[in-house]
């Protein structure tokens, strides 16, 4: 989450997904900026409650698949029609289109190959995931059964902490920007 202004961050720990989801809705309705939630599993509806945009990874996968389809079409055209045409089982080799039915399996496989692998690489890249990366979660309990919420502090600190306590936060701490 890119912060333009550097406000201090209030971290609140919760122990239930429903409480976190309700808290996010409540805070945002009251004008607070919930900048991040760390959770041990996906919470359905949390992305909408946080106002996150839809991910474009599936659209990207579609275009990656197209790259695979074009690559395999070119590969079969270049090797089988242009570079060294041969009569194999009497199959027509004068035009790519006529020989194409026997290239369909390879074209399909390469489409899937490109779509799946390039999408996963994009996923790792946009999430900043790579072997040996430092753990992104500030508290190790958030991969077990705790939920950590980060709220930007804009007004009075006591108001926000009181609000978080009322919403069910178990621990509250302040991080200076």
């Amino acid at each position, binding site marked *: 989450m890119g912060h333009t202004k550097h406000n201090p961050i209030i971290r609140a720990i919760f122990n239930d997904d429903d409480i976190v989801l309700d808290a996010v809705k409540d805070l945002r309705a009251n004008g607070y900026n919930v900048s991040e939630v760390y959770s*041990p599993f996906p919470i359905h509806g949390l992305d909408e409650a946080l106002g996150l945009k839809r991910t474009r990874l599936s659209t990207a996968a579609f275009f990656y698949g197209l790259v695979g389809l074009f690559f395999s079409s070119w590969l079969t055209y270049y090797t089988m029609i242009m570079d060294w045409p041969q009569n194999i089982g009497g199959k027509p080799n004068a035009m790519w289109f006529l020989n194409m039915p026997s290239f369909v399996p390879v074209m399909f*496989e390469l489409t899937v190959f490109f779509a799946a692998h390039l999408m*996963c690489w994009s996923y790792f890249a946009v999430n900043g995931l790579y072997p040996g990366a430092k753990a992104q979660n500030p508290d190790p309990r*958030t991969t077990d059964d705790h939920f950590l919420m980060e709220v930007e502090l804009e007004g009075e600190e006591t108001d926000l902490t009181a609000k978080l306590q009322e919403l069910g936060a178990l621990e509250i701490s302040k991080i200076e920007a």
Partner: protein
Amino acid sequence: MHYESPIRNPLILGDKSYSDITNDIARPVESKAPRLWWIAFSIAFIMFLWGVGCILYTIGTGIGVWGLNKTVDWAWDITNFVWWVGIGHAGTLISAVLLLFRQKWRMAINRSAEAMTIFSVIQAGLFPLIHMGRIWMAFWVMPIPNQFGSLWVNFNSPLLWDVFAISTYLTVSAVFWYVGLIPDFAMIRDRAINPVQKHIYKILSFGWGGKAKHWQRFEEVSLVLAGLATPLVLSVHTIVSFDFATSVIPGWHTTIFPPYFVAGAIFSGFAMVQTLLLIVRKIFKMEDYINIEHIEMMNIVIMLTGSIVGVAYITELFVAWYSGVEYEQYAFLNRATGPYWWAYWSMMTCNVFSPQLMWSKKLRTNLVFTFVISIVVNIGMWFERFVIIVTSIHRDYLPSSWSMFSPTFVDIGIFIGTIGFFFVLFLLYARSFPVIAQAELKTILKSSGENFKKHHGDHGTH
């Protein structure tokens, strides 16, 4: 929001909290290996070493050490190849197809089923590689420019389609598996005490932190990968069946092969998942997560796919008769009544008759019975491939060249070796990887956990 109909049986038994799930799934990784694990690992490792010896002997001496002859020039290696690829199919079916159908029971078993997929496809891949004879030339199957005036691979050949299908299948299954593993590795990383262990899981978990945006992408990527893996898994065994169906051998040249092979693959794969999970749930005390409900569901899939396979066998017989082609008719008559009649009837008994017993609820919820049937099915499916391959070619058009096939100790040794290698990989996996997708499982605790369901029932809340 977390409501599920009380008619549906709970998928997570006992009074579990999120933390209990974490502890139960991290336990096999954190505790010492049970004695039974060491015994199983030792046996598998010895089998593996025996297979390595037989493979080295084959490569050093040549394919002549196998039982192949001029008439039966494709036998054990291709039988084993198709058998292992088929087993792999259930993993993808569980993780991809059941995800698209929103079947929640998949969550307890998808991790191990996918591990099984990857490990069995590795075994499958070994057979064509060693059958090449000069395995160091294996890269010739790739379309790369070469010193022969760019003599390219033949994209018209089903064998080359197989190269692309199997390699795509193996690598896509591996990334699908790994994307799901990352949050679970992070869970083990965050609770590890031993610094070496912490470091290993830090590398494996790629720094995962469970941010809201990352979970959103995680779910999207899982869904799209499932969408890609579903046609992929169907294509793989379809293309394997093309290895036979595009030839002009009576008994192979049939259009029914693609769906018939795919159904058989799912059938044998589910049987292997049963075999493995019945052991895993016992050794690692996962009975609350992989319970009778899961086993019954899988048995129903076995029953269904076994019936599809049975219909395919009968259709084949009918079409052979109806075609009016005497060679085609003889190929099937020879299968059922020729010198390999015992292989044919083993296949029929194991694959068509035995799964029909699953119509009885008492039997399909019985663990011992399930275990026995799961092994019987895989024996039957091995015979199916043997019957299709060997009985179709051992009596060709020229009766003077009719012959029989008998495997040598090398054929048998390599097959045993792959079973050993498979179990070596699976046992290592079971000790070091989270065997259940715990992050996903936590999302259904409130809707499908026994205690939560009971609570809903008592209070009538929706």
